[in-house]
């Protein structure tokens, strides 16, 4: 085990002078190892907790998830209920965040919009991970022509700018929230292929992989049980940051009319209709945008925090 954290209590026992002879020193060393071993998971959690930004991000994400899950209970109005007597009313006691161009309550729509955004973020990254990670494992572990082929396909997909590929895919698939998720997921996939491949290449020359091979493990077993667990931290960090990017992408597609279709609420499409009423109803633009910003910021904060917390070079 490497040196423990300078603040950990185990450090106290280490400093004893070696006057008692080699036998005792050996015992000492063993005890020290016992005390300083901390599972990687716990160490990461402890380090994550020290980062105020990441903790704040986690809290905000938890709040948004609760809001999305309990939207029907929290929302003061039906998000689709139009009212011609309350068109573009400024924020008031009855409508905290005002109403939109057809008299729908903005707060209710922001609350229900959390569903589309979070769902799109998580599902598109899930699609990307479930296609990208296996391909990356195969590519990095097998090498050879399989790797060459997969790498060139990855290059080709990465050559088309992210949002442009997503727009093109969504356009050809047809506009809907589901298709937007597929488009974003497919577009995010090459990032995971490349990341997994690189990590596998770095890990597969390690001694423990060699040892696993030496005792006769089949290749799939080595890939799944020896390599995959060791590259999880990197995947977790990328996954979190990718959710942030996917939420922005979904909002962008919905803003362009290629994602969530009206009248279903989504933050992106709310901004689209808000743009036409900037002079008379600015509240329509402020709140959905703020909601996207806060959610994305939180995922970015957690991603950054995770990266620092899981970095083995930093203790």
């Amino acid at each position, binding site marked *: 085990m490497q040196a423990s954290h300078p603040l950990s209590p185990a450090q106290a026992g280490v400093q004893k002078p070696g006057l008692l002879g080699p036998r005792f020193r050996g015992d000492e060393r063993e005890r020290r190892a016992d005390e300083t071993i901390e599972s990687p998971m716990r160490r990461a959690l402890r380090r994550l907790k020290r980062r105020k930004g990441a903790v704040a991000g986690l809290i905000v994400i938890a709040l948004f998830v609760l809001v999305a899950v309990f939207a029907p209970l929290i929302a003061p109005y039906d998000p689709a209920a139009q009212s011609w007597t309350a068109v573009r009313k400024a924020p008031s006691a009855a409508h905290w965040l005002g109403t939109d161009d057809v008299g729908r309550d903005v707060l209710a729509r922001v609350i229900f919009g959390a569903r589309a955004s979070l769902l799109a973020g998580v599902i598109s990254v899930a699609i990307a991970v479930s296609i990208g990670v296996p391909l990356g494992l195969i590519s990095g572990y097998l090498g050879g022509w399989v790797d060459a082929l997969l790498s*060139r*396909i990855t*290059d*080709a*997909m990465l*050559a*088309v*700018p*992210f*949002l*442009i*590929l997503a*727009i*093109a*895919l969504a*356009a*050809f*698939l*047809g506009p809907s929230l589901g298709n937007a998720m597929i488009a974003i997921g497919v577009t995010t996939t090459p990032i995971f292929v490349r990341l997994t491949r690189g990590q596998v290449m770095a890990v597969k020359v390690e001694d423990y992989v060699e040892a696993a091979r030496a005792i006769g493990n089949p290749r799939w077993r080595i890939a799944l049980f020896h390599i995959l667990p060791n590259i999880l931290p990197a995947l977790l960090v990328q996954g979190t940051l990718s959710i*942030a990017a996917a939420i*922005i992408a979904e*909002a*962008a597609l919905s*803003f*362009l*009319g*290629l994602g969530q279709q009206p009248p279903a609420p989504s933050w*992106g499409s709310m*901004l689209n209709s*808000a*743009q036409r009423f*900037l*002079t008379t109803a*600015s509240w329509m*633009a*402020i709140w959905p*945008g703020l909601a*996207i*910003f806060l959610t*994305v*910021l939180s995922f*970015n*904060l957690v991603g*950054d925090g995770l990266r620092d917390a899981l970095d083995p070079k930093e203790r």
Partner: protein
Amino acid sequence: MLTFLAKRILQLIPTLFFVSVLIFSLQQLLPGDPALIMAGEDRDPAVIEQIRKQYRLDQPIPVQYVFWVKGVLSGDLGESMRNKQKVLDLVLQKLPVTMQLASMAIIIALSIGITAGVISAVYKDTPWDYAANVFALWGLSTPNFWLGIMLIFLFSVQLGWLPPSGYVPLTEDWRQSLATTIMPAFVLGNAIAAVLMRHTRSAMLQALNSDYVRTARAKGLLERSVILKHAMRNALTPVITLGALEFGTLLSGAVLTEQIFTIPGFGKLIIDAVFNRDYAVVQGVVLVTATTYITLNLLADVLYVLVNPRLRA
């Protein structure tokens, strides 16, 4: 250098091949008969038959692909179904607008990103550093279409300083041109500035901890000249090549900002094409974007080797 270049160019061939397959197969995603979709409202069987012949839709898919690639290689990206203009002409016509926007955005991004990155590295762990990091996080987390809308709200609706939309070419009236493009360029540059700031910060931190900087300080050089001449020069080379890779972000961003500010560029072209179901234009734009991106990537790689003597074999 020559072998490196040759190897790098050879590697492009399969990549370009897969890009073309990717873009070609987009049209296979269209639900239903493409001829029917292309015919639009016109359900005359003769017209549909003619479209089928013209686009070789009656042939097997690999044959269609070969004909498509042949056309692309000779500069024929097909024609717009809406106004029968050549796709290549359309793209070339819109390109200068986006180029102006992109160059302004790059200038904004470089000046903000590098300044903030250098300051935060030199004054590590001070309020300056925190401020720069907060700026980077803000830049990475703000959806650029929202930023655009908010800027219009502030500078056009509230203050009335800048026009909310529209575009005037540089050649026509440079003042008006700058007034119409400064907000979209800032929106585009903002996110890239954040990325550049992070790269610059880590490269500068590394440079400031290196032996040559310690030597320069030990020689008694002024701290200013150590930072500007020794650390920055070495730190910024990778940053600038990394900046070239942000070109993709720039084009993605251009789609949204041009839409918000109604600027008739590249991004507006692809969105209009999407809504007019003008699929040849969508394919053409994606193809041109990808090719440009690949070429820029190659240039960045070559540049990186050129400015870094240790990599020159």
